[in-house]
C-alpha cells in the first residue's frame, strides 16, 4: 500500500467508461437502499462445490470425481447427480484438448462415489473419445472396486477417504490455474479453487466461480465470481466485459441496463470505497504500476 491516492484517481477516470455498475441489494421487506451492503456468497468453495477435475501428475492424468454426499438420495440439491457428473466430464475433456498428449493414461479417483460397470464404461468411453486411456481406478467403495475389476481395470481400493481426497487439505493453498479452451454456454458452470483462465466466451446464463482471479480471453456475458473465498483483491478480466453480474469476494454488481457502445479489454476490481469498479485494462495496469494496489 504505497499510495492509496492513485486508485481513486484512476477510478474516476474509469467511471466515464463504466459508471453504472449498481450494487445489488437483497431485501425482502424494506425499500432497498442502494447503499446497503450487498450480500453475496462469500463462504467460498465447499466440498459440495467440487467438480470433475483433471490434473496431470507424473506423465499421467488424474481424473477426480466430486464426492458423493451421503445426503444425495434425500437432497439431490446438494451434490451433482451421475448424469451431471458425466456431462461435466465430457465438457472438461473438450475444453482441455491441447493440454495432454494422445494416449495418455488416466487414473480415475472415484473417492466414495458408487460406480457400476455401465457408469465406468461411460467414463472410459468419454476418455477414449478424447484419445485418453483409463488404466486404473482408485475407490473407497467395495462395489465400485468389484465393478472396475470385472470391467478389466486395475483397481486400488483405499479405505481412508483422506487419502483419496487430494484437495482435502488444500484449504490454504489454491490449486494451480484451470485453463479451459471452450465457449461456456448457458447453464455451463465452472468452479475452481484457484484462478480460472478461459479461452473463449462466457455466454449469458453461464457462470464461473473462482477463489482466485478470472481471465476471460473472449466476451464475458455470464456471471463471474472471483475471490470466492473472500479475497477482495481478486480481479476479473475480459476482452469484452458485458456480464450479467459480477462478484468479487462478497461484493456484487450487476451490469448497467444500457451497455456501452464500444468495448475495450477491461478489468473489474473492488475499489477502496467498497464497490466494484470496471476500468480499461490499459488504464488499470498503468494505475497499478504507479499505485501498487496489492
Amino acid at each position, binding site marked *: 500500500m504505497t499510495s492509496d491516492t492513485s486508485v481513486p484517481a484512476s477510478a474516476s477516470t474509469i467511471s466515464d467508461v463504466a459508471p453504472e455498475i449498481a450494487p*445489488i441489494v*437483497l*431485501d*425482502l421487506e424494506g*425499500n*432497498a437502499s442502494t447503499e446497503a451492503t450487498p*450480500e*453475496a*456468497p462469500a*463462504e467460498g468453495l465447499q466440498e*459440495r462445490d467440487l467438480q470433475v477435475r483433471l490434473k496431470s501428475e507424473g506423465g499421467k492424468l488424474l481424473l477426480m470425481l466430486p464426492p458423493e454426499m451421503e445426503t444425495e438420495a*434425500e*437432497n*439431490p*440439491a*446438494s451434490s451433482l*447427480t451421475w*448424469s*451431471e457428473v458425466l456431462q461435466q466430464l465430457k465438457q472438461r475433456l473438450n475444453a482441455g484438448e491441447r493440454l495432454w498428449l494422445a494416449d495418455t493414461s488416466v487414473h480415475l479417483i472415484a473417492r466414495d462415489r458408487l460406480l457400476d460397470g455401465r457408469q465406468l464404461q461411460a467414463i472410459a468411453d468419454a476418455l477414449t473419445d478424447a484419445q485418453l486411456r483409463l488404466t486404473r481406478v482408485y475407490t473407497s467403495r467395495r462395489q465400485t472396486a468389484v465393478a472396475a475389476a470385472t470391467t478389466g481395470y486395475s483397481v486400488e481400493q483405499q479405505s481412508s477417504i483422506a487419502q483419496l481426497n487430494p484437495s482435502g487439505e488444500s484449504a490454504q493453498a489454491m490449486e494451480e490455474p484451470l485453463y479451459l479452451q471452450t465457449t461456456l454456454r*448457458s*447453464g*455451463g*458452470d465452472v468452479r475452481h479453487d484457484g484462478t480460472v483462465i478461459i479461452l473463449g466466451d462466457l455466454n*449469458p*446464463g*453461464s*457462470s464461473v466461480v473462482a477463489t482466485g482471479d478470472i481471465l476471460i480471453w473472449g466476451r464475458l456475458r455470464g456471471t463471474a465470481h472471483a475471490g470466492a473465498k473472500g479475497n477482495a483483491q481478486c480481479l476479473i478480466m475480459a476482452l469484452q466485459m458485458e456480464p*450479467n*453480474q459480477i462478484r468479487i469476494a462478497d461484493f*456484487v454488481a*450487476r*451490469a448497467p441496463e444500457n451497455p456501452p457502445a464500444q468495448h475495450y479489454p477491461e478489468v473489474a476490481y473492488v475499489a477502496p470505497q467498497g464497490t466494484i469498479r470496471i476500468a480499461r485494462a490499459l488504464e488499470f495496469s498503468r494505475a497499478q504500476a504507479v499505485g501498487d494496489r496489492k
Partner: protein
Amino acid sequence: MSRVIVVTSGKGGVGKTTTTANLGMALAKRGRKVIVIDADFGLRNLDLLLGLENRVVYTAVDVLAGQCRLEQALVKDKRYPTLMLLPAAQNRTKDAVKPDQMKQLVNALTKAFNYVLVDCPAGIEMGFQNAIVAAKEALIVTTPEIAAVRDADRVIGLLEANNIKQVRLIINRLRPAMVQANDMMSVADVQEILAIPLIGVVPDDERVIVSTNKGEPLVLSEIPSLAGTAFDNIARRLEGETVEFMDLSVPNDGLLTRLRKMFSTKLF
C-alpha cells in the same frame, strides 16, 4: 390466505412462461403480493422475461442445498415491488430437486403472498411433478393445435390424478383469420376436447415477442394491445371478476377500431 397456481401445458413452447410473467405482473399491478416461481430447472427463462436476470444471486437450489436463506433468493421486481421471483438454477437439472422439497419451499412462501404462480417446465417428468406438487389450482396453456391440445388433455388427466381440482384453460396464440378460414382450431373446437372452464383467449401478437425480448411483460405497456388486455382480463377473472371475453373475430375495419370497440364495450 394465498393461492398456489401452477401454469402448465405438457407441450413445450406454447406460452407458459409468457403467461406466468404477464399474470404475475398484472396481479402485482392490482396491488396483490405475488411470487412467481421458476420451476424450469436447467432451462430457466422467467427471469429473462421479467427483465430480472442480472439481479439473480441465489436460486431455489441454493436454498435447498442450505447455501442461503429463502428470502435471500427472492428477487424483487424493479417496477412493482409486490412482485417477487424465486429463480431456478440454470446449472443443474430437474433431478436436483425433489417434490417434497419443492412443496416445502412453496409452503414457506404462502404466508407472505396472495398468489404463488409456478411456471412449469414442458413434459410430464420430474420437473412437472415438482411444479405441481404444492399447487391447488392449475392454468392449462395450449395453442389451438392438435398436438398441443392432445398434450394438454394428458396433463389435465395427471392433474386430476394428483387431486388438483380447480383447472382452467388458456388458449394462446389464436389467429382469428386462420380460424375463420378453417385453417386453425377454434376456441370451441379446443373446448370441446378439453372440457374444462375457459379463463382466457390470447391472440397471437408479435408484440408479445417484442416485449419478451425487452424483459417487459406486455401488460406493462402503455399502448394497449389485444394480447396485453387478454392477460389483464385473465388476472381479473382469477380475482373473481366477471369479464366478458374479447371479440377477436376479424372485422372489416382496422385494428384501431377493433381496439376502441373492445375498450368501450368490454372493459368499462
